[in-house]
Structure formats: C-alpha cells, structure tokens
C-alpha cells in the first residue's frame, strides 16, 4: 500500500496563497488506510485552513469531499462538489491521485496536500514501515523476503557494507541493518547458500531509468481501443 504524510501546514498555506476557494479532496483508498488522506483528514484539514484563514486574515475558504480512488476516472462521478467551482483543489491522495486528477481537470490546479513517502505495511497500530521500493525487478526470492533495495539505506545487492554496526545501520542507528536481517532469515530457512552466489549489477532501467513505466493488459486494452 502507498503511504503518505501530510505536508507541513506552512507549506500548504504557502501553496494555497494565490487561491480563495479551495476544495480539500480525500481519497478513499491507501491514504485512508494509513490515516492521512481519508475523508476525516480532509474534514480536519478544511477546518484548519478555515481557522488559519480567520486567524491570519486571509481570504480563503475550504470545503472537503472524498472519492473512492483518485487514480481511476470513473470515480469522479461520485464527487459531490465540482473542482470547477473552486480556485484550486488540495488533493490529499498520493502523488498518483494528484497527477491523474490534474489530467482529468485541466482547468483547475490540483495541489498536493501530502508527501507520498513509500510502499509500506502496517507494522503496529498506527505505524507503517517501508517494505518495497518498486524497483521493477524483484529480488525477494533469494533475500528471504526482505527487500535490500527498500530496506538497506544503500540498496546494496551483495551483503552488508562496512557500516553495519551491532545489527544497526550506520545511516541511522535506530534502523535495522537489512543485510543482517536477510542473513538471519536465510539462516533460519537453511538458505544461506543464496548468499554464495554473486549477484550481477541490477538492471536499473526497470526502475526509473527508461522514463515513465506503464502496464498494459492487452486483453483489456484492445477491447477498449
């Protein structure tokens, strides 16, 4: 799932400075689940904007709305408020939603209310952690299910660096060294042999190297074209 965090209010207020009437638009999927971009957060954010506007004497008014996903065009039918009626939309979807909605509503500025941070899982009540980087060439089969791209600060492929220290990463002493975890996991699986194999340099063109990535399911896309 995509995880995102709300941008600092100062930044949001600065972004919105040119606009008077703003719609805060929530997304009912990933960002609802990680409690940052759901309808309730949109409601709170709209309130905060209205309170800030009053306190700072700004000519700004915010409403809120929510659709199931901002990354599918059909759901815009469920909007109860129309972007065209606003000077700008502050989308609290992930970057995908902001970008996609911008395409669908070319006449209305869509601004990001969140910073899209990672693909993560819910590790404890109210806590999410990164698990995947979306590199386009998955290695989890031989790393015991632990992603060295996402969870090693340096995305190393052939074991830990020299900065590993008592199981922690030199980049952040609070962070586990992914390679120690991989080692321990493989050991318990009896698959330490996986590490004897030298891994060639990764094909990063499958990551972002060749520009915008795309998925096409021929069987459906042909029907539609």
């Amino acid at each position, binding site marked *: 799932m995509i995880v995102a965090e709300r941008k600092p209010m100062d930044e949001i207020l600065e972004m919105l400075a040119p606009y008077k009437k703003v719609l805060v638009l929530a997304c009912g999927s990933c960002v609802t689940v990680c*409690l940052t971009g759901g309808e*309730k957060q949109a409601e709170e954010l709209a309130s905060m904007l*209205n309170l800030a506007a009053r306190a700072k004497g700004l000519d700004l008014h915010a409403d809120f709305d929510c659709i199931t996903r901002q990354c599918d065009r059909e759901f815009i039918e469920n909007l109860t408020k129309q972007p065209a009626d606003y000077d700008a939309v502050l989308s609290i979807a992930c970057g995908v939603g902001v970008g996609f909605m911008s395409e669908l509503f070319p006449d209305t500025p869509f601004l990001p209310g969140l910073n899209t941070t990672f693909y993560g899982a819910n590790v404890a009540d109210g806590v999410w952690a990164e698990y995947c980087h979306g590199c386009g060439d998955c290695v989890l089969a031989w790393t015991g299910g632990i992603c060295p791209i996402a969870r090693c600060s340096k995305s190393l492929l052939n074991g830990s660096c020299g900065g590993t220290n008592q199981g922690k990463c030199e980049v952040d002493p609070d962070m586990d060294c992914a390679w120690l975890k991989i080692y321990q996991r493989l050991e318990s699986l009896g698959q330490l042999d996986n590490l004897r194999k030298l891994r060639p340099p990764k094909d990063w063109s499958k990551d972002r190297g060749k520009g915008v990535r795309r998925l096409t399911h021929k069987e459906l896309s042909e029907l539609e074209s």
Partner: protein
Amino acid sequence: MIDGDLTTRDLARLKSTAELMAREWAPCRNGCPVHADVRAYLQCIAEGDWRAAIDVIREQLPFAAVCGRVCHHPCEDNCRRQDVDERVAIRELKRFVAETQGATGCTVNKPKKQDKARVAVIGAGPAGLSAALELAKLGYRPTVFEKASVAGGIPATTIPRYRLPLEVVRIDVDWICAHGVEIVTGVEIGKGKTIARLRGDGFEAVVIATGLASSRSLPIPNADHKDVHLVLDFLQAVSAGEAPNVGQNVLVIGGGNVAMDAARSAVRLGAKTVRAMCLENEEEMPAWSWEQEEARDEGVEFIHRRGPVEIIVKDGKIVGMKARRVTRVFNEQKKFDPQYDDSDVIDVACDTVIFAIGQMADLGFIEGGELAAERGRLTYTAATHETSVAGVFACGEIVTPPGSVVEACASGRRCAKAVDQFLSGKSIQIDDSTPPVIDTIPEATAEKVLKVDRVTVPTDAAEKRKTNFEQFEHTLDEAAVLREARRCMGCGGGAEVIVDKCAACLTCLRVCPFDIPVVTDVARIESDKCQACGICIAECPANAIVPRSRAVDELVRRTAAALAKTPKGKKIIAYIGGFRCTADEWMGRSEPIPGVAELYHASTSRLGVPELLHALEAGADGVVVVSCPDGTDRYPTTATRTKKRVEQARELLGEIGLSPEKVQLAETADKGRDAVREAIREAVVKITEE
C-alpha cells in the same frame, strides 16, 4: 426502509441517520403492545428531559400515567439488560415522568381542523379512550359514552387505589380530553339510548369498547347469599369508598391478579383472616409472582388445588366452604380442563366469600339492535375490528382475551385506524408488521458492559401498608431516575457502516472497546453487539460509520445553536460527558458560567477531533472537554480516547499558529457540579490568557 447493506446513496435519501432506528427494534419496544419507543424515551430521561420523554411515550401510549403504575411491563421482561445484570426498571421511569409532567406538562397535538365525521365510542376505558384519541388526532369528532360516573374504565373504577390512585388516572383522561375528545359520563348505552339511536343522532361510526363489565359466579348452593361478593362489584364499592362489609374471615375464590386485588383489599378493610383458594398450585397460579408475594407479606394465605362445592350457611350466616381436591387443572394440550377428586372434600371456615374467578362481557348494549353475538361474546372480525353491523366496530376486552391496560390501548388505537379507513371509503387493511428485533446480547459483549445495580423502589412495609388504601410503592427520586435510565444500553442505536465508503482500514476494529467490528470485505458491525459508544465513528478515517440513534451532525448543530445564544464577548463551548450529571445540568438549569455554553452528551467517547475544530470554526474562542475518568464513564477507554483526541486537536492548532490552549481537557465529569464548574473556570482562564 433500507434492507441489508447501507450505502451513501441510501443515506442521501434519509432526512437524518436517526431514521435508521427503524431498521431494527430493541426487544423492549417490540414487546410493548403499543410499541412505545422505549429506548428513545429512556434516553430523554437519561438526559433529564422529562417533557421530551413523556411526549415520546404518549406518542403511542395514551394511558402513560396509569401504565406507569400498573403495567405488567412486557418491555421490561424483554429488556436485553437482563443478560448483563438486571432489567431496566422501565415502568418506574415512566411513572416518574408521567406524574412529574401531569396532564399539562405534555404536548397536545390537536389538529387545527376537527371537522371529519362524528364517531360514538361506548365505554371510556383504555380501549375506548385510545380509539377516541386517535380519531380526534385524525380530525374526527369522537364522543365517548360512559356508564360510570368517572372516565377511565377499570383503572378508574376498579383497580384498588393502593395500586392506582384516581388522580393518576385523571392525568391520562385530562390529556386525552385536551385533544377534543368529548366524554359523557353516567350514560349507559342499551338502557334508553341504543346503538341504533346513536347512529340516527348523526354518528357515522360506532366503536364498542365496553370491556368485561360483569363478574363470573358459580352455580353452587348459597352462591346468592348476601355475604357473597362478586369481585367487580366488590372492588368498585371499595374504590368508591363504600367499605363493604367483609366480616372477619374472608375466602377469596380465584388465583389471578384480580383475586389478589380482592384479597389485599379485604385485608385493608380489616378482615382478620384472608385466604385465597384456587384450583392451581403455586406455579400454575396466573397471578403475577410479585402480586402473590406482596399479598403473602400482607398476611394473605393460599389454599391451592381446591375447587368450591358448596357455601355452608348456618343460621343465615356463612360458616364455611366445602371444597374438593383438584387432581389437575390443564389437560395434555395445556387447555383449562380441571378434574376433581370428589372423595376428598374439606370444609374451609369463612364468613365472607368473594368470587374472583373471571369477568365476562355484559352485552346489554345489544338490546334492541341487530348486533350478533355468539356464546356470550360479540361477533367480530379481529383483522378489521368490524362487528356484524357495518359501521359498528369493537375493541378492547369486550372482544379480545382478558389482558392488560396497555393491550386494550393497542386494540383501541388499531380500531381507530379501521374506523378511519372505513369512513374514508377505503377497504380496511391494517399493516401490523414490525421491523426485525435485535438479538440477545452475546456473553462476551455483556461482560464488558459497565455493571450498575437496578434501582430498588421505596416500598412501605406490609405492616404499615395493610391498614390503609394509600399507595405503598413510592415514586423514585430524581437521582435514582437518572441513574436507572442511564442503565439502558440504547439497544439498536449503534454504529452502521456505509459499505461503499469503508476502506477496510481496520481502525474501528482496533479502537472498539467492546471488540465488535470485524473486517471481512468491509467492516461489519453487528447491531446485537454494538454498544453505541461512538468511538469508532469518531476515529474512522473514511467517515464511513454513522450512528443510528442520532443525526451525524447533531453535535455540530447543537454547538452552532448554543453559540448563537451566548452573549457577545468571549464564547467558550464546554463538551461534558453527562453520565454522572444532574438533570439541571443537562437541561441548562444550573447556574451558568459566564461566557460558557455547556453541552452535555452521553459520553465524550463520541467527540471526535473534527468536532473540536468545528466548534472553533463556528465561532467559539475555546473548547473545554470535560470527561469522566476511565471506569466512571459508561464506556471503557473513553477517558484515554478523549485525552488523545484533545492532544491531537491541540497539535493541529499549533501547526496553524493558533494557541493549543484553545482546547482544554478536564477529567472531572464524575465529581459533581462544583468540580465541573471549577474545572471549566480554570480552563477558561487558560483559554483567555493566551
């Protein structure tokens, strides 16, 4: 009503989520013959709003004050709270509000125009008056003819005053009359004025609601002796203050509630020995267990499984009753079919006999008319209330099996619908369907509900009460009333998931202190488990959960209204968890704190971060949240949740450069008015200092 899953589109069709209450009923409501909205009125009482409560009751139950005293309370028997600790004392709560408000303290919904047909109602008992009231509300002009000198039927003339003072009956009768119901007392239909004549006098329909006006007797030797009383005549004479002679040694024949009334009245009239003899054994006796117990406490003795054979008279005086042994009362099909052993006959000494073996219809009103009757009962169609004559209807005990006041009211109300359809030229079709009833509370949930003892009704000791006809059970005091009403779990008023909004995020499952939600495809909250604390509603990131028992924006609207009323200057909103607060506090009658609008609700568990921000948005300069500490609130984890939400709201304010001090928390809602006042005052100082 919406069936199955609730969607955004369904919600858009509703005026308020409160309409969702019609999806399922609590068993208390279902069990009540008139289907009074028990949960709703108990909530009003819990909030100290007696007026709103009695209005909700009277919506369905015209004999609210009478039932507050004498109802056999099937609502209570069905109350789900019995699986937690004990049933809610619903009847006592009804008694309190009905008598506190009297006839004038409840709303009268008399239509502006009452120009529809005139309808004659015969009999001013619960059934007749209920029918007349409904007809008046529909714009008809009902006139009720009553043979007795007072209106109210059996409750006014016969039920002993120690259980039901006449003033209490008058409350209901006066309120009913205020709707344009005309009552003519002292007129017996059949004698002089016949039904045929009534119709000639311009009454377009007639409702017969004459009840069971005669007592049954037994064709045994000496049954006509002057010291043999028939129960209705006896009780009516007692109620009229005539103190009939009961001698020293009374034998009441019968084991029902009416027999108990006769026996206990005989005790109060000064009889030395009072015995009740019945065919049934203790378990089979139809009298309510509490009636038997109270009678026993007052010295009434019971002779079970004996049937009367002959009243023994010597020198013109009754000296005893010959009674044979009963071998069985009911046959295999559980039908009443007593069998006797004539070889086992005893003499029971007595000087007075009261027959309390049942009542029957007095069909005197049929005289001179065309109404048909069979085996002593008026011919009638239960589905439509029609008799054999078009335009003549019947309701109440004249046609139904003997029952209770509330059942007679239900019958009367239903009959009014039939009369209305008839007079509107429609075919008579009455929809008796009711919503499904919510199930019993599962043990795992019941365990987590805060236990609170059921109130005990202040009652005079038997020695004191048996010497007079004064009421011996007393009305609860206000504190007891609030505490008891707050025991109601508000069944069926809990959370509903809007399935198309739910993101299956699992938050509700994680925060619910009762472990109710499960997330399958989306979150599922079972109504028989949900305790309506509202914690999940306040936390759901998708705003995908709504309460059934209140409008989603209820608090926001109340806040706006309160702010509008607060005088100019600094305006502070105080949200107070009212589980331990007084009626004066809830109702805004306690001494106000200048500049502060106090808003009470069942628990701060329902107060979300958006609401705190909305209050400021609506113009409040600050918000004070006063919660009950954990363990004293009605819901677990409330204090902890409330604290976290206040902290979050304060952080958000800090982020936009407003002072976090605008939102304050005090955990003193359980400590009484002075502590609450003091806490709010301190919080106001912090808010205004910033």
